[in-house]
């Protein structure tokens, strides 16, 4: 195949896979992982945990645990979770992955307190390669002192959703050779522009001032769509996306 066609095929295949994954709610993934022991489903769960674990770490740190203990507990919790033991206890037919994860973490910590020293010694398992140094840095940077563990958990979760969609949008622009345009447009994700912003932007992008608002608007809409898709995976059905949106970003 000529390179451009080959690229197009790869691109479509990736897009297809990504859509396939995002259209699958986590509850279905959990069921598949439990009931047929499906490796694909297990990997999907692992991807979810790999994405959202910084919220778990932040919760543990805000409980007053030192970095080393928070790391250890994060890994132990994820090891238990990915062994799918926790899924058998949870009501998987409904609910959000965020609530499920926090609920499971609380139960895990309560069990952990009752465990004897001998049992605890066996817990130094590493199931996922996680960048604790970076997440500790991020925790110190963003976790405001007034926030409790639950709030730290939720804030980090919301930021993770926003970052995942942001990176995806950035990748889309880069794929189309529009990295510079992305850098110009990204600031409009946090604030609507003024007329003078638009006039300046038109000059930098080399387009007419009149075509700036639709460009900015589509950019924001695309981002919104990517955020929705990111959230969609973590709820039990599509009707829950809006309420999860409200809770995360209010």
């Amino acid at each position, binding site marked *: 195949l000529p390179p451009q066609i080959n690229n197009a095929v790869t691109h479509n295949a990736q897009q297809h896979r990504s859509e396939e994954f995002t259209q699958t709610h986590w509850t279905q993934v959990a069921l598949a992982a439990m009931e047929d022991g499906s490796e694909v489903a297990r990997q999907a769960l692992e991807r979810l945990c790999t994405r959202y674990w910084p919220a778990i770490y932040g919760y543990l740190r805000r409980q007053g645990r030192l970095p080393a203990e928070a790391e250890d507990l994060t890994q132990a919790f994820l090891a238990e979770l990915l062994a799918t033991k926790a899924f058998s206890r949870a009501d998987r037919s409904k609910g959000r992955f965020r609530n499920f994860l926090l609920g499971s973490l609380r139960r895990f910590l309560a069990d952990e307190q009752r465990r004897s020293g001998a049992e605890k010694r066996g817990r130094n398992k590493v199931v996922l390669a996680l960048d604790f140094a970076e997440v500790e840095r991020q925790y110190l940077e963003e976790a*405001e002192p007034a926030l409790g563990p639950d709030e730290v958990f939720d804030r980090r979760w*919301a930021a993770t959703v926003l970052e995942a969609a942001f990176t995806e949008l950035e990748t889309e622009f880069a794929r189309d050779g529009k990295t510079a345009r992305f850098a110009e447009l990204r600031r409009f994700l*946090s604030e609507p522009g003024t007329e003078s912003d638009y006039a300046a932007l038109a000059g930098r992008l080399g387009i007419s001032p009149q075509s700036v608002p*639709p460009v900015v608007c589509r950019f924001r*809409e695309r981002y919104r769509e990517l955020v929705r898709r990111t959230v969609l995976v973590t709820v039990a059905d599509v009707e829950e996306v809006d309420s999860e949106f409200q809770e995360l*970003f209010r």
Partner: protein
Amino acid sequence: MKDAPLCPRCGARLPTTALGGLCPRCVGRSLLGAEPAVQVPARGEKENVEVQGSDPESLSLGDGTKTSLAVDLVGEMVGQKIGRYKILEKVGEGGCGVVYVAEQTEPVRRRVALKVIKLILP
């Protein structure tokens, strides 16, 4: 703990690298403020026409191509004529614009979906 720069609007701490240094709270709130996108299913003879530019003469309906023209979005749009389109009813509103069912009068008479792009962000 080192002092992170603060968001000038909401006072939250700004990330150094993540999210391009944007304030996560403001980005999140901005998402809530935007209205949900509307999707108009393509069916029958409807075609999507975007209306946004300045020259009514440039409005040519090819094979479902998007064209543009400027309109003043003042007051009720239903009943108004834009170029060769008469606006019949509003079917939805998204973050970027409003979608109407319209009747095209020439060269053929048919119903189209007309998307009017907002020129100013909410």
